[in-house]
């Protein structure tokens, strides 16, 4: 009895220590987890993979550093995918916090592709393969304005270069030239894209969101308003798995680092620890309650 009672009122620092260990150890000694793609992830991947050649991809970086562990692998994977299939990409941020993360992902992915480029035509260059539009406010301005004329909303890119004359901009003038827009967000921004951009211009949308908010987005995935969805680190890892298979098929077996997949071992261990905590907590609760009564 005493044991179960003590277990119920255990010092929370012991719990913190266990959580720290189960998160840290798999990060230092990762174990391989094979991700099996769920329907929303597969749907987004297939849609982008089979997009017509004259259509581009726009990614809206609508998150801040606090959720980057979950969401940044999605941005990296989407950029890799678009560059691998040679589709023009536009990247924007609806909030200034997303700019630095967008810039970091662009630098990483362009460096990866340029390291494997055999000629100038194979390289990934700002303005030619992609445009980093940057940030403008308020969010309604790019959401609606890009449906009419993207260069009017973003006359210069993030680096201060005029956008109108860029080759990538000539391929993507407005939403008519966009195959899909993916909003990666920690807040409800993807829903604003539905309310404003999709209802008015009929653009296809996808979303990348934190695991905790996944439940809020399923109604929109089921209704077809979102073509696909990446939910949390698990969604990112599943997309990375599909992308690697696709890149190998295209002869790009580059063995790129997959941060989402790497972190899955840590996340799986943390989930199991929390499940164990719930079981132990409930056993202790029922044993003490029964003995009391």
């Amino acid at each position, binding site marked *: 009895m005493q044991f179960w009672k003590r277990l119920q009122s*255990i010092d*929370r620092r012991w*719990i*913190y220590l*266990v*959580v*720290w260990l189960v*998160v840290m150890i798999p990060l230092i000694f990762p174990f391989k*987890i*094979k991700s*099996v793609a*769920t*329907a929303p992830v597969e749907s987004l991947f297939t849609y982008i993979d089979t997009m017509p050649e004259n259509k581009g991809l726009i990614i809206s970086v609508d998150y*801040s*550093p*606090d*959720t*980057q*562990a979950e969401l940044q692998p999605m941005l990296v994977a989407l950029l890799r995918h678009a560059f691998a299939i040679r589709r023009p990409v536009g990247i924007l941020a609806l909030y200034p*916090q997303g700019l*630095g*993360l967008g*810039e*970091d992902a662009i630098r990483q992915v362009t460096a990866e592709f340029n390291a494997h480029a055999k000629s100038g035509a194979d390289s990934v260059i700002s303005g030619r393969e992609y445009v980093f539009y940057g940030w*403008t*406010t*308020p969010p*309604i*301005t790019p959401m*609606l*304005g890009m449906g*009419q004329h993207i260069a*009017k*909303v973003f006359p210069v890119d993030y*680096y*201060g270069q005029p956008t109108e004359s860029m080759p990538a901009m000539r391929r993507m003038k407005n939403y008519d030239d966009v195959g899909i827009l993916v909003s990666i967000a920690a807040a409800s921004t993807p829903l604003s894209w539905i309310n404003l951009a999709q209802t*008015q211009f009929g653009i296809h949308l996808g979303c990348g969101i934190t*695991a905790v908010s*996944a*439940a*809020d987005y*399923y*109604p929109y995935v*089921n209704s077809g308003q979102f073509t696909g969805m990446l939910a949390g680190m*698990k969604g990112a890892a599943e997309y990375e798995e599909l992308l690697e298979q696709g890149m190998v098929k295209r002869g790009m077996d580059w063995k790129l680092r997959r941060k989402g997949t790497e972190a899955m071992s840590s*996340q*799986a261990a*943390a*989930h*199991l*620890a*929390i*499940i164990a*905590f*719930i079981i*132990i*907590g*409930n056993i202790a*609760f*029922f044993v003490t309650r029964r003995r009391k009564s």
Partner: protein
Amino acid sequence: MKKRLPLILVLVTGIFGAVTYFIPHHSIQAADESMRNDVMRIIAAFSLVLGLGSILQHHFHKIQHKAQNWQYSWLTVVTIFVTGVIGVFGGMDPSHPGILPTQIGSFSFHMQTLYMNMLVPLGATMFSMLAFFMASAAYRAFRARSFAATLLLAAAFVLMLGAVPLGRMIFHPLPSFAEWILAVPNTAAKRGINFGIQLGMLATSLKILLGIERGWLGGG
């Protein structure tokens, strides 16, 4: 007039915003485009100044009156000015230098360097603490005390196990079952809630446009 003018402005701009959605005439669409691309951006720029003024006023007031933890207010004020100056005059990174030299030897304090090495770790640290609190809360509060709590516990259990490879090993269809919980019962409940929220938003918006709800004017 002090109250009537904002109310008229809200009524006119609110009706205009809704009307542009239904009238495709080029003059209305051109006015809407100008509203979004010019007027709203100018207003947003003013709100930035207002926000900056407000935060500085708040922290200078704290410093002046030596309020609780006033020392941290200095940190906020200094950080605002330093990042502001580097952001406006300094370079984004070594390949995009600005007017202000932001590199001393190998030590760089460009905007991107500051962002990646200060804001990213700080933000990630704050958010990662959630894992510790969640684990502690799960241990102490997640109890099967009633039928509803047991149902919640069972759903959470399936979803968590479905998200890890062990779930598939224990029971192969478990991940699909977890997906079904999210896609069917969750969607049904969420749709009901969303309908309620949207109707509430519509009613509140109309009340604001028609001047029935005036809380936004301030003054309690």
